[in-house]
């Protein structure tokens, strides 16, 4: 619900009026990292939003030029630090495409299981912090409690809880822990009721719906023009998921749906839809994990890892469906041990561009709701 105020004061009285400039961030509790938003306000109504980025810039792309191909993997981890597994996944696929190698089937299954667990973990952070932004602190802790379980699974696999360096070009660094399959299978029946709990506590809460439905509506056409992808695009009503539409790895073996925003509580493409698409996606991820855990074959996981990665001269663009949207890697090789160029196309950076479009005419409190709903990670915006 955009609120328009007629500004006729200047015309009627000859008095000079000016907009208030409010600086939101970089040290603000709900800018999800170090983002600075320059707000132009009229009372509490937003006239303009200018995001200022770069507080977390770490020169990943330049660093990558001085590293060998496997050495880039830890840098990739630190881009979108809430979805490290998927960043590695995308990078590994790109390098493998460049090398033209095939990985063992067990590796593909492990990657998909890890990737989907990572998607759930990432969405849990997104949903939990979104609740906290709206003012409900309890769902936030509930979400983090469940995320801990996933992180423990990751820790068991590779020893790290946040930045894994697990998925390497050509394979994964270790095989699964012998107890992993059992514990992962236990997680699924544990987690299904928790999604319902989250829905009862937050999704269908009247106040939450009041705050998010019909706020920050993103029409499909605008979304496509701005290059929006992932859950944000799907919330606007377009069934587009790279796992199905430009399938990679072994996603074509699994049976899952792609949830889209239906405007259940408001208009298609509002904040509530963007929130709820993520809730539904967690269930779909559970389905994929369930199937993958049942079908996972035995085998070796490190055999295909090349001793020396020295791709032929050439370039490749490969994209995967990150929890936040389309994560693409453009890698150019000049035939040496180091990549000549690694360019990442991150979803968060692209999504941040839509802020001004979405926020205009809303109130200050809605900025928080909108920023939370597009779910950006500043580590990946700045890289």
């Amino acid at each position, binding site marked *: 619900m955009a*609120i328009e105020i007629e500004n006729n004061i200047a015309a009627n009285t000859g008095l000079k009026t000016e907009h*208030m400039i*409010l600086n939101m961030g970089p040290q*603000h*509790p*709900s800018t999800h990292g170090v983002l600075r938003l320059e707000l132009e306000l009229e009372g*509490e109504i937003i006239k303009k939003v200018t995001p200022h980025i770069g507080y977390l810039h770490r020169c990943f792309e330049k660093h990558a030029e001085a590293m060998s191909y496997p050495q880039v993997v830890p840098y990739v981890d630190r881009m979108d630090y809430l979805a490290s597994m998927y960043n590695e996944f995308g990078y590994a696929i790109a390098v493998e495409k460049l090398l033209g190698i095939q990985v063992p089937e067990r590796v593909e299954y492990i990657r998909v299981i890890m990737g989907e667990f990572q998607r759930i973990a990432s969405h849990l952070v997104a949903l939990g912090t979104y*609740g*906290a*932004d*709206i*003012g*409900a*602190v*309890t769902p936030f*802790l*509930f979400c983090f*409690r469940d995320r801990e379980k996933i992180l423990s699974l990751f820790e068991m696999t590779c020893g790290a809880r946040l930045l894994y360096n697990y998925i390497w070009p050509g394979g994964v660094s270790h095989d699964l822990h012998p107890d992993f399959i059992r514990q992962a299978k236990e997680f699924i029946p544990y987690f299904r009721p928790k999604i319902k709990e989250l829905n009862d*506590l*937050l999704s269908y*809460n009247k*106040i*939450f719906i*009041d*705050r998010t439905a019909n706020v920050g509506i993103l029409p499909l056409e605008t979304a496509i023009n701005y290059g929006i992808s992932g859950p944000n695009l799907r919330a606007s009503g377009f069934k587009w998921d790279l796992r199905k539409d430009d399938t990679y790895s072994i996603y074509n073996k699994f049976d899952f749906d792609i949830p889209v925003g239906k405007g259940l509580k408001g208009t298609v493409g509002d904040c509530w839809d963007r929130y709820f698409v993520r809730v539904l996606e967690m269930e779909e991820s559970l389905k994929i994990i369930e199937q993958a855990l049942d079908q996972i074959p035995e085998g070796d996981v490190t055999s295909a890892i090349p001793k020396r990665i020295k791709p032929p001269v050439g370039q490749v663009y490969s994209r995967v469906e990150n929890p936040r949207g389309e994560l693409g890697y453009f890698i150019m090789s000049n035939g040496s041990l180091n990549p000549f160029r690694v360019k990442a196309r991150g979803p968060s950076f692209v999504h941040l561009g839509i802020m001004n479009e979405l926020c205009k005419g809303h*109130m*200050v*409190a*809605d*900025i*928080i709701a909108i920023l939370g709903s597009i779910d950006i990670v500043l580590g990946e915006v700045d890289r």
Partner: protein
Amino acid sequence: MTYDFFNKLFGSQIVAALIQSLLPLFFFILPFALFAVWFERKVSAHMQDRLGPMRVGWHGWLQSIADILKLIQKEDIIATENDKPLFNIAPLLVFVGSYAAFAAIPFSSAFIGSNLDLGVFFIVAVSGFVVAGILMAGWASNNKYSLLGAMRSAAQIISYEIPTILVIVTIVMVTGTLNLNTLSEMQTGHFWNWMIFGGPTFGIAKFLLIPFMILGFVIIYISTLAEVNRTPFDIPEAESELVSGYHTEYSGMKFAMFFLAEYANMFAVSAVVAALFFGGYQSPIGYLGNLIGIKWFIPIEQLLWFTAKGLFFVFVQMWLRWTLPRLRVDQLMAACWKYLIPLAFVNLIIIGLITLI
């Protein structure tokens, strides 16, 4: 009663009055605030699958004392651009507003700070004082977030006073008194004499009153939540939007003043609700003192009942805070002006008609 006792003991009215006014501060408000801070942390922790403070004392019960010690040691920061006099007065004013409200609250039949005939009216009036303090704090901080928080707060508290007063008026209409002590005395006996169950009268009117009394209670409880800035109406200090609203720029003891005032206020409004609808200090099941024939034991029992009732409503406030999200400022105003005020008016008229029967 206590006033006469002290007057006789010291032979001076001034000393007696001083003791009378400081008693609730040192024996009730401060201990209560310390307890409530700890209690809130424990309540929120257990609602969120956590343990909360566990290290300082048994289950962390010394935590709030440790917090206060830390706050006392903190540097008292006053930024150069602050409006110093206003900046210094504001926390005092906010605290005075909530402290003064305790003057007219009857803790038991033996102790009431000042037995005012205009008790409820006085409480409503002095709570309005808090708005001035908050506005001052927001303005003097010279911070845009603080100012936004203060403006929201002023609008919110003033708006929500209207439904509060309308519900109080309905009670006054039924009972014919503004004195909280008299009101509590009227609801003596068992719990069916409480105003929420139609008051001490019998007959058809009592049963007709019950649903409307419950409605009145719901209205006044929601609006008192808004008056003390608790979730879902904690918009003035909305952490995720305005950092912490009007007290963003305060540190050390000045911040502690705001904190203390908030918790004191929580109890004050809960006490008013308890006195209006739930019999004040009256026991719902009769007194042990009457049973065993020790008369001086009754006021102590009453104090316990009163604290228990107040604490229950404080607990509900905490419960709501850790469950519900926050409304937006325009939705908050809509909730007040579109729903609560008309409902309160209708309630007022209907209860007026019932009392005519």
